[in-house]
């Protein structure tokens, strides 16, 4: 988009008060530094924080709350105290929510919602008084077949940083980048993705760059390492695919931490990245509808909940809350995005919710609905067992499919270990197994099957 404009026009677009209100000379200097470095990539787009000075102050207070307030005190039982006033406040302005009378049967009787509901009629789930031209839009990947557009606000987008800091604090990392530093680089690795530079006004206008590690976006492939060494970002975020590409670069800089979102990360890959960069690799369970939900902590053996105003339940297929430790669907209520308040929103992801020393923790998190595979013996094997068995391999991404005749096809991004086939055979028996390279660039459904298990 920006490449069609003259340099002056690009600068005007980049520094427009709508995108970067209150931009100071030091902020401008940071933008120049990010864009004008000889090894800088092609930045194709523009974006900004869009936080007015008043909203920035509000966010400073809000961030303190998001970083330090407690999450839900229980993993089972009555909803937290804040939920009822929150529900009462929103009830009249969200058309899709049930009437007050629905409360007479208690929280558990409230109907659940899903991605399909949001996709069918999003406007009924967005508070009427917030449906305004000031909205911004984030789009989900649609891995489940239900891509939706999530309305949001600049303040909500800025709140992500507070929750990321909370996740990093669980790993002993405290961000210190201020004026003159580059705070974060968002690394993608796709044929084409949204790339831009910006500054963070809440931390002294430290720099932010969203880059694409695909060699086609750079003058020379070696520029990637040169640029990252020169910018020395305090934090690098990405997904398992882009972080894997990052690990192949000859960069010397060691960030304070790597932040991984968007896709599941295997233990093997996490360990390899930790060894390569010598810093914590924080795997965040996050989605556009709810923002960062939980962060993986090895000592807790699961994902520790992050949001103070997000109620997480584990439900069975009928919508009943399950006892602590039971495996079921992760269901969310509340959230920090006022434009999309979630009421018993079924994420489609499955896990067990247990209490650990770190607080409520999601264990055995499965990114999509559970799939059962038919073993040669006639038994049905849950994909959780497959995940646990494959966790030790350094798999960047993989997808396992079972055909109607029982045959298996495993698609793997990157090199495939010779141990993979025996491991799968150990669980599913000696079905014919084909191992192919995974070509898709973005998210894929990890487990699929043409066979239907008998209903329980």
């Amino acid at each position: 988009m920006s490449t069609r404009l003259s340099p002056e026009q690009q600068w005007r677009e980049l520094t427009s008060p709508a995108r970067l209100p209150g931009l100071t000379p030091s902020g401008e200097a940071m933008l120049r530094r990010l864009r004008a470095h000889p090894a800088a990539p092609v930045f194709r787009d523009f974006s900004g924080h869009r936080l007015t000075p008043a909203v920035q102050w509000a966010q400073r207070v809000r961030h303190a709350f998001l970083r330090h307030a407690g999450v839900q005190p229980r993993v089972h039982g009555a909803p937290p105290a804040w939920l009822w006033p929150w529900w009462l406040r929103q009830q009249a302005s969200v058309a899709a929510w049930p009437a007050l009378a629905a409360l007479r049967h208690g929280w558990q009787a409230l109907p659940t919602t899903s991605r399909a509901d949001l996709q069918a009629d999003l406007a009924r789930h967005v508070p009427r008084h917030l449906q305004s031209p000031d909205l911004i839009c984030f789009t989900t990947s649609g891995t489940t077949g239900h891509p939706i557009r999530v309305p949001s606000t600049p303040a909500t987008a800025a709140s992500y940083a507070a929750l990321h800091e909370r996740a990093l604090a669980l790993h002993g990392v405290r961000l210190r980048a201020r004026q003159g530093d580059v705070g974060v680089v968002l690394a993608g690795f796709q044929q084409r993705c949204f790339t831009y530079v910006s500054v963070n006004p809440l931390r002294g206008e430290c720099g932010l760059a969203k880059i694409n590690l695909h060699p086609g976006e750079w003058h020379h492939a070696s520029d990637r390492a040169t640029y990252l060494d020169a910018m020395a970002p305090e934090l690098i975020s990405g997904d398992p695919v882009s972080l894997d590409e990052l690990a192949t670069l000859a960069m010397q800089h060691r960030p304070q931490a790597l932040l991984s979102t968007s896709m599941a990360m295997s233990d093997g890959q996490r360990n390899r990245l930790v060894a390569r960069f010598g810093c914590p690799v924080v795997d965040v369970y996050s989605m556009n509808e709810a923002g960062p939900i939980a962060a993986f902590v090895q000592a807790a053996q699961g994902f520790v909940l992050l949001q103070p105003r997000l109620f997480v339940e584990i439900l069975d297929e009928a919508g009943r809350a399950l006892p602590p430790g039971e495996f079921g669907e992760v269901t969310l209520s509340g959230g920090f995005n006022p434009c999309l308040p979630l009421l018993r929103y079924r994420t489609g992801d499955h896990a067990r919710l247990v209490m650990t020393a770190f607080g409520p923790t999601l264990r055995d998190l499965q990114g999509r609905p559970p799939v059962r595979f038919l073993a040669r013996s006639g038994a049905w094997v849950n994909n959780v067992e497959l995940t646990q068995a494959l966790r030790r391999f350094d798999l960047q991404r993989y997808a396992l499919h079972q055909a109607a005749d029982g045959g298996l096809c495993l698609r793997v991004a990157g090199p495939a270990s010779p141990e993979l086939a025996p491991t799968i055979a150990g669980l599913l028996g000696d079905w014919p197994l084909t191992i192919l390279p995974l070509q898709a660039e973005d998210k894929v459904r990890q487990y699929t099957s043409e066979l239907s298990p008998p209903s329980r």
Partner: protein
Amino acid sequence: MSLSRLNLAWSAMSPWRRRSGMACGLMAILLGLWVFLPQQPGLPPRWLCQLCAALAAGIAVLALVSPEPAGKRWHLGCAVLLLVTAVELHLSGWLLLPTKPDGAALMALLQGQALAVASLRWVAGVPGWPWLFWWLLLPFIAITLIAQNVQPALAPRMRRVAGLGAWLALLALGLRLGYFFVQPAGLALPVWVLAVLLVMGVLFGLGSWGYAALPILAGSVFGLLGRVLDTWQLGAPLLAGCTALALAVTAACWLHWWLRLPAIVAEAQASRAAADAGMAAAQAARAAAPPASASDLQAYLDAQAAQEGADKYTRE
């Protein structure tokens, strides 16, 4: 000041200004009750204090269920005012007097308060300023000036002064509250009020009235420090001066608004007509393109600025 002009004034008022007026009216009624009813025999001494607290709680519940931000803020504003009144009733010790003041004593007391205000002792920052001024006038100043920012009658530059004045008034109120904070006689209720304000702020996500509570809370802490470190005399004149400025701007707001009344009425009528026309056009457009809200939302989300999003550190 004719009745018709008053009627005209009321109809020309913005909802915000009407609510401010109603809040002031409510305070005046409470004041009247406060002055009149304690003279009646047989009433328990603390009933008015309890009535205020109960009313505040009821209105706070209304605020919780109010769907619109403006209604919510108004209800919460009233609740806070009532709470403050309850505190003052408690602290003033009037209701705890062994014998109720008779008419002459009451008049003398009120006259003393009025003289204290007129003497501008409070400008000099003398501790023990008239409670009437602090507890009734300061919230009124703050509400008027905040309303002034929401529904302006002044030029933008004056509006900024008014906004500053509003926050200073709230800060001064907090300082006064903090001053009471360490007085043993008045310890319980201010703590309770602070707790209620804090809970409201937390319940409302520190997004709306939570911010209004913050300067009061901060002011309370400063007041407490001033009391403990005996530095009250240093900051008080400055704050009293700022409060005087806020009072002057409040008076200017109302005077300016009163003088411009005919023009404001005309503007309001024109604006209402334009709004009606706009509403009709929007309704016609919606009728032509159902479903209405869905298409509006889609249009907002399709806009270039919306598609650009805003900075967040990760991709989900």
